[in-house]
């Protein structure tokens, strides 16, 4: 008995050790990046790397002074919120219908766009949106990013809808609901956390995507992530500002992930296990 307890304790200790090792590997690079953003620009690439330094927010000031950083951030926000909303607007009913009918090709179709390299779309979309004079508009960016968000929403939500007992929908039918009303009154309230997870994931992936903005935006609508490259240019590589920009760009997705991590594990994995 006490022998088993010792083994138990030993296993727990081993697990903690592994946890710590994993944690260090996972977190160090990010921590280093954040630290660098508070170093003077030339010190970022100093060698040996400085660990002790007098932190400065100069890089952040530089960033906001030399680039329309907040404009880019607002562009990113508009595009991301727009494409996430569009993804939810189209994705929720589609996921519901697919779950109801078990006819899965609409869901697979939306995923097909994910299988082609993003570069394949650049020129055609440019030509397409040029035709309707939407280059540089938020509309074009939101539509292109919705191609990313839509399959995320559908595939995360599918298993959530699947997990609602069929009879609940039938009871609602008997009670007098149309299909659409069942979606609104019964299904959506029941998959709330699934919708939250899909929204967060859609937000993160849309926020992180840079390729489409490269050709579909212009100086006024450029997203943060597309603008990030502007910090690496001949004669003007601002390492400090680059790290500051990187930190700020990564902040919203990381914050969101922190806020919803509990649901994330449940929601994401549900999709993976069943989908």
């Amino acid at each position, binding site marked *: 008995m006490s022998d088993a307890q010792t083994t138990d304790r030993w296993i727990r200790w081993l697990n903690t050790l592994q946890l710590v090792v994993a944690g260090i590997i996972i977190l160090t690079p990010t921590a280093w990046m954040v630290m660098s953003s508070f170093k003077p620009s030339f010190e970022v690439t100093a*060698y040996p790397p400085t660990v002790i330094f007098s932190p400065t927010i100069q890089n952040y000031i530089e960033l906001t002074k030399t680039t329309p950083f907040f404009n880019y951030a607002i562009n990113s926000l508009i595009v991301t919120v727009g494409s996430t909303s569009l993804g939810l*607007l189209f994705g929720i009913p589609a996921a519901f219908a697919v779950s109801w009918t078990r006819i899965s090709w609409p869901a697979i179709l939306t995923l097909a*766009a994910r299988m082609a390299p993003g570069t394949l779309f650049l020129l055609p979309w440019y030509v397409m949106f040029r035709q309707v004079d939407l280059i540089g508009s938020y509309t074009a960016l939101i539509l292109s990013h919705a191609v990313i968000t839509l399959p995320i929403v559908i595939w995360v939500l599918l298993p959530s809808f699947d997990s609602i007992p069929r009879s609940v929908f039938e009871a609602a039918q008997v009670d007098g609901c149309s299909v659409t009303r069942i979606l609104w009154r019964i299904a959506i309230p029941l998959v709330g956390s699934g919708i939250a997870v899909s929204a967060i994931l859609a937000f993160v992936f849309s926020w992180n995507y840079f390729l489409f903005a490269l050709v579909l935006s212009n100086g006024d609508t450029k997203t943060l992530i597309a603008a990030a490259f502007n910090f690496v240019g001949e004669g003007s590589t601002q390492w400090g500002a680059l790290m500051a920009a990187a930190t700020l760009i990564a902040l919203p*997705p990381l914050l969101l992930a922190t806020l919803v991590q509990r649901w994330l*594990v449940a929601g994401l994995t549900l999709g993976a296990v069943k989908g």
Partner: protein
Amino acid sequence: MSQATATLTQDRQRLELSALSAPAVIFTVGMIAFPVVYTVWLGFQSFSSTGKQSFVGLANYSKLLTDYEFWHGLWVTIALYVLSLVLQLVLGVWLALVLFHAKRLHGLVRSLFISPFMMPPVVAGMMWLVILDPSLGAANYILQSIGLPPSDWLASPTLVIPTIALVDTWQWTPYVALIVLGGLQSLPPSVYEAAQIDGASPLKTFQRITLPLLLPTIVTAAILRSVDLLRFFDIIYITTQGGPGNASNTLNIYGFRVGFEFFNIGYASALMLTLTAIVFGAVLAFNRLRGAVAW
């Protein structure tokens, strides 16, 4: 008569359901139909050097067969794919097990563990580029300070693929772990109790019970990662641009460079479509595999 009315209800409901999925379908078709058709068309065109455009039939595709860079790119793509996938699946399962047993882990800490894949790949690429610089980066400094020889990392033609695989593994292992964690949580506890009663050791339990039961989940994770890994782009675009030499010139990077650096859109289109077909094939194959390991 009765037949007709019966189908009426069915039709009404089906109509309503179709109407619900219609926006997503119409939107997707609207967004991808033209690009696909246009790219197929471009693939039959030649835009070579003089910029004159002409129909060349399958010339771009037959060029693929004799293009050393294409075959090399395919090899690089597959090498990077296999290496990254194996690393991520193995480490992902390990991390999931560690997290699964750390039940009292605070939510905030847990979210830190999954943070890498939330980070924009562009940012991750920039970050690692600075860290892995052979002369200036922190990575070599750490190696040297613990008495190991410095490495050329991304600058070595032999190490660049493992290094990129490591960077990608750093970013995506937590994602795999998250998926596997879900799989672990959905396993019926009674199975473990049964195994315990049967007298299986922890190792045996993992080997004979946990792993087989997790296989469908792992295959799912493999599918999700395959789609991205076969189209490996962001991190290479930021860090090596396919170099040194052509050591990290994946098909996606090669196709991109052919189109946007060497301005041969026709050949680039043929490359992109070929890559798309490869991704599609891999997903289909894995889907089969998932059917085979389902329980």
